[in-house]
């Protein structure tokens, strides 16, 4: 397979997944924020904060600076425009979908024509939308349409692509991006809880107890719960989480589910495992030992995610852990490029 074609498949996988992840994140954030008004008494507090702030979304996508260079305030309209339609934002939905479409166009002969068509048709629809139309109607409906377009694409891919190299490249991109996005999403939550209120409660003691009334803004408080549920919902994980963990909304369980669970399709561990499988099929490696750089990095990351416990992660610092996982995923991406795509 041509390296450039493989590269295009890889990026189509990443871009479509990224469009979906961005849609999920903005959707859940927008709707969760509707219900997190502060009690009137706290509005004037200097350190008052809203648990669901656009600032955390901007921070976590690494675009705070870029955003503030072009927009004055963090209002719904501007932020949604930035994340969805702003062609100058390299992560906006329109921009990544355009990227996926351009890549698909350059390898039309490699993929099923229905796959190209699904990307093209949604691209044409996306160009008909703008932020005012999204806000005037039901924003959720719009974000649902983005997710559906991604699902349609994935569905056609699953149904039509040969079980061969191009598919493994598409999946490499898709699952690597999914692992990164899930790690990021958890990081958003961490970012939200960073301010003052968190510090006075020990992290291991989450369950609200009868003796102690929890701080409404602190860990275990109603706003905290609301935030965690939003995180789960944004990866369609809430119901599956409930089925798996019966001990309520506990950060350790959530980390366990979203990061370490090998069976949940949006978990970091699952994504990394799938990428490793794709890479081994691409190199033709049937053994446990790695034969390429990407395999070595992926195997090591998978092993870490397999053998670490969620309470260990929390004790040593969730943000640090998620940050290192994202960094290691980026290393995998670079190793893939070096090994196969631009040697």
């Amino acid at each position: 397979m041509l390296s450039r074609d493989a590269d295009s498949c890889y990026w189509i996988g990443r871009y479509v997944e990224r469009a979906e992840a961005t849609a999920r994140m903005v959707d859940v954030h927008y709707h969760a924020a509707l219900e997190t008004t502060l009690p009137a008494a706290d509005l004037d507090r200097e350190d008052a904060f809203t648990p669901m702030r656009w600032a955390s979304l901007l921070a976590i996508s690494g675009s705070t600076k870029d955003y503030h260079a072009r927009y004055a305030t963090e209002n719904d309209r501007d932020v949604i425009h930035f994340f969805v339609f702003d062609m100058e934002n390299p992560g906006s939905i329109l921009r990544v979908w355009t990227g996926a479409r351009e890549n698909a166009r350059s390898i039309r002969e490699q993929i099923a024509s229905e796959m190209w068509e699904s990307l093209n048709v949604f691209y044409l629809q996306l160009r008909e939308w703008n932020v005012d139309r999204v806000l005037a109607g039901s924003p959720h409906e719009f974000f649902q349409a983005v997710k559906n377009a991604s699902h349609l694409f994935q569905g056609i891919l699953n149904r039509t692509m040969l079980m061969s190299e191009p598919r493994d490249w598409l999946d490499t991109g898709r699952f690597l991006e999914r692992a990164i996005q899930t790690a990021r999403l958890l990081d958003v939550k961490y970012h939200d809880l960073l301010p003052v209120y968190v510090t006075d409660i020990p992290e291991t003691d989450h369950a609200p107890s009868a003796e102690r009334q929890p701080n409404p803004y602190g860990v275990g408080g109603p706003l905290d719960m609301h935030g965690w549920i939003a995180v789960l919902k944004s990866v369609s994980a809430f119901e599956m989480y409930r089925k798996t963990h019966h001990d309520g909304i506990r950060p350790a369980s959530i980390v366990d589910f979203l990061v370490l669970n090998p069976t949940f399709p949006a978990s970091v561990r699952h994504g990394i495992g799938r990428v490793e499988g794709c890479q081994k099929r691409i190199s033709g490696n049937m053994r446990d030992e790695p034969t390429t750089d990407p395999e070595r990095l992926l195997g090591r990351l998978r092993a870490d995610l397999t053998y670490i416990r969620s309470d260990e992660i929390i004790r040593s610092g969730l943000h640090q852990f998620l940050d290192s996982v994202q960094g290691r995923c980026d290393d995998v991406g670079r190793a893939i490029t070096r090994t196969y795509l631009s040697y």
Partner: protein
Amino acid sequence: MPLFDNYQTNGFYDEMFQPDGQPRPHYWKLFQRLTGLSLEDFRRRCQLAELTLINQGITFAVYGGEQGVEKPFPFDLIPRIIPADEWELIERGLKQRLTALNLFIHDVYHDQKILADRVIPRDLIVNAAYFRREFLGADPPGGIYVHICGSDLIRDQHGTYKVLEDNLRTPSGVSYVLENRIILTRVLPQMFRDLPVRPVDHYTTQLLNNLRELAPEGRRDSPNVVLLTPGVYNSAYFEHAFLAQQLGIELVQGRDLFVDNNIVYMKTTKGPERVDVIYRRVDDDFLDPLVFRGDSALGAAGLVNAYRSGNVALANSIGTGVADDKVVYAYVPRIIEYYLGEKPILDNVETFLASEPTQRQYILANLDKLVVKAANESGGYGMLMGPQASQAERAEFAEKIKANPRNYIAQPLISLSQAPSFIDETNMEGRHIDLRPYILYGQKEITIIPGALTRVALRKGSYVVNSSQGGGSKDTWVLAHDNASLSQQRNGMSQMMTGTGMAQSLGGMTQSFGKPAPTTEPEGGS
């Protein structure tokens, strides 16, 4: 129903109708079918075809507009029909022409006998923009330079076919021939049943065979054939991707290729893989930065030397543009006589050369009657349509001609034939058309697919058919035989049609669009 009720032939040669308003014999059955359709029904089929084009992204990029503007190439559903005897003439004429042009190119890059014999002025050739002196003496496989040719034909007011120009470098448009046919068989399948329409879908098979034959010695068993495209922003990118898919070959860009020790490789995920034949859709100028334009990233450094060493084949060869220069075009009838000793079967359009003093005087004095063309422009750019141009535009061209006479030719404005086209989704109007058949020159023989791209100038009164200038296309039907009974079947028509399963299948289609069946049976009723 009234699709053709207000149709006018406007005094032009009309492909479908005789001057008396009767359909020509080879159009009769189509006419019958079409008049059986309601306006609504026909309109819906047009929309279905257009939606297919947009959703599949069968579009071309428009240069000079906003970055990334894509338009579908408008597709007019009324096919253009060519009877078997006319096609036979076209086929013979084009084979003769391509044979002579290939001999001419070979001569120009070797002995230059035709220049020594003063049939063509030497300075005209050596100063031609597409003359590649770097390529003198090189020998392409089998002595063939032009493997794929697309010549543009027109019909004048008498219906006579004439050659307007030859495209010997990287002719495009064949994908529309194939796609138009696929779409038309989907949206108007019934029309095909009545006529012996020759298939066109073997084009890619023939092309692939020809390309594989070009592979270097020792690589013929399983040659690696690729299509080289400039990339997604090229106006013909859709075609490149389409052909690569249909041929089952890799679509490569310059950055996928590299040359090592005069061997061309492409970068794959399994390491470098040798390339044997390149169907290139990149102009000479951009093929190799070491030989041609140094700033080009569309080709591969060292490609020309690899080609000269015989380690890779190119289709078309380098330097073919010397023969599709519009000035050289004027000499093609003499070229045919010089190499083949035959009279041309297909005539040129009368052409005046600005490089000849007396002809230049004539051109300058008659700018309001002539079409002036720059020697090496295509796509309808660099042209003056004298009769329709303003005084200022004509004056501007006069200056250009005086400044660089070698670069201009002029031709009388030909009243191109017209064919019915569906305009504004409301009625049929005559629009001017041309014809571009695709000719493949293989090691053993020249073949032409029985079909062609018919381009149509959709703007009222326009003679410019180029897609960049508001042109569209039509499916082109070449008939397998001109059964004399075609015209005699007029009366027996309705009888012949009823009783077949066809009325039912057409009724079924109409219903599936959510409309009640038409009150008149499409076949004319029983």
